[in-house]
């Protein structure tokens, strides 16, 4: 029982305090790839902890198949003892309900998010192939449009789209910086990470961590794409391109006014490049390892205890 409570406690604490921990001192902005990984792992860890807590309640009511049951007879007794929760079958079925429910609910949201995205994208591409012209020299599709626009369409027929408005305003070096940024999105399959974060956030909007990840992951991926583009392009050129593209936008087209990612990105590109220290990276890596193993360890703890008490010998 205490193990179940510990797991649920872990999920609640991480779910609520997670955003504050992960945003601490803006470390993720200095290592966006690691940041995305930590956010995603933390989100999955919260969901996994709840599923495992449910499964732990199920263990005592599991009817093992005959052969296995004999082998594990003594072991099961011990396992039952260690996983025992007072009103037996009810708790077991409740656990099954929670674990199965959370799993199905999550999988359903992931599936619908990915399908909705694919449908929307395909519809977009269908019209796009009609109205856009392929510019082989840029490896991009160009649409006749006055607003400066640049975006990419991930997927099977991935492509970068530029508006004539953007091409008119941007000098060549800025165009290639923009293209590098978009190609970083495409090659890194950033759309998959975004979809996953969006699906988790949609499935459990009441969990602060998952809700925060929904905006944090796309933001960090923008920073990551900037960093990748900056490997082969001048940071100031990229910043200038950002300002040009954003500045030429008419008010009606500008979304979510003020204080958004754009501001941060321009500032970040103009400041000297400041990647996270090795210690910082190591901490991030260790955090990921902990986020993966901690729920599993907590769930397996009673079984390990049983094993250590030597009452229970698993036929290996």
């Amino acid at each position: 029982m205490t193990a179940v409570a510990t797991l649920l406690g872990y999920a609640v604490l991480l779910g609520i305090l997670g955003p504050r921990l992960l945003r601490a001192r803006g470390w993720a902005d200095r290592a966006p790839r690691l940041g995305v990984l930590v956010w995603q792992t933390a989100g999955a860890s919260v969901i996994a902890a709840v599923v495992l807590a449910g499964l732990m309640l199920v263990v005592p009511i599991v009817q093992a198949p005959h052969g296995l049951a004999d082998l594990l007879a003594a072991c099961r007794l011990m396992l039952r003892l260690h996983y025992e929760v007072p009103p037996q079958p009810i708790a077991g079925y409740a656990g099954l309900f929670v674990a199965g429910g959370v799993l199905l609910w999550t999988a359903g949201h992931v599936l619908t998010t990915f399908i909705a995205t694919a449908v929307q994208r395909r519809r977009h591409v269908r019209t796009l192939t009609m109205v856009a012209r392929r510019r082989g020299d840029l490896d991009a599709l160009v649409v006749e449009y006055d607003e400066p626009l640049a975006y990419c369409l991930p997927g099977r027929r991935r492509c970068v789209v530029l508006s004539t408005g953007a091409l008119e305003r941007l000098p060549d070096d800025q165009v290639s910086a923009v293209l590098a940024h978009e190609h970083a999105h495409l090659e890194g399959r950033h759309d998959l990470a975004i979809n996953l974060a969006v699906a988790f956030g949609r499935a459990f909007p009441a969990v602060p961590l998952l809700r925060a990840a929904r905006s944090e992951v796309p933001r960090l991926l923008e920073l990551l794409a900037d960093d990748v583009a900056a490997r082969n392009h001048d940071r100031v050129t990229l910043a200038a391109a950002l300002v040009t593209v954003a500045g030429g936008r008419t008010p009606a087209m500008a979304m979510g006014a003020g204080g958004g990612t754009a501001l941060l990105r321009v500032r970040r590109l103009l400041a000297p490049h400041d990647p996270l220290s090795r210690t910082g990276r190591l901490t991030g890596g260790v955090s990921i390892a902990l986020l993966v193993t901690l729920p599993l360890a907590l769930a397996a703890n009673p079984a390990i205890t049983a094993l250590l008490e030597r009452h229970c010998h698993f036929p290996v």
Partner: protein
Amino acid sequence: MAGQRFGDLEAAIMDRMWSYGRPANVREVLEDLQQERSIAYTTVMTVMDNLHKKGWLRRKRVGRAYEYEAVASREGYTAKLMREALATSNNQAAALVHFLSDLSPEESEAFQAALNVVRPRDDK
């Protein structure tokens, strides 16, 4: 799939129709296309029929042939598509990852000024 195979041709035909800016029949489009590729009358006819069914072209019978015309201008389609792209990226699910989403005019002016300061030193 036929749609896939005709995709390029559909785009080429719509490109012609938009550039004419007036109704045209299959033969006119065929002759235009034949200047840069060898293509059969029936192919062009089939694709234009498809475009009509898909709502890109409207047609009326003139004599024994159909006269085709673009339902809406290229600019019209583009504007609608770009508005959609911006709207969907705002709710993120479409993952049409945008180069840039938001920067108010004041912010952008301030940064332009900052860039002008950085640039000269940078260009040296």
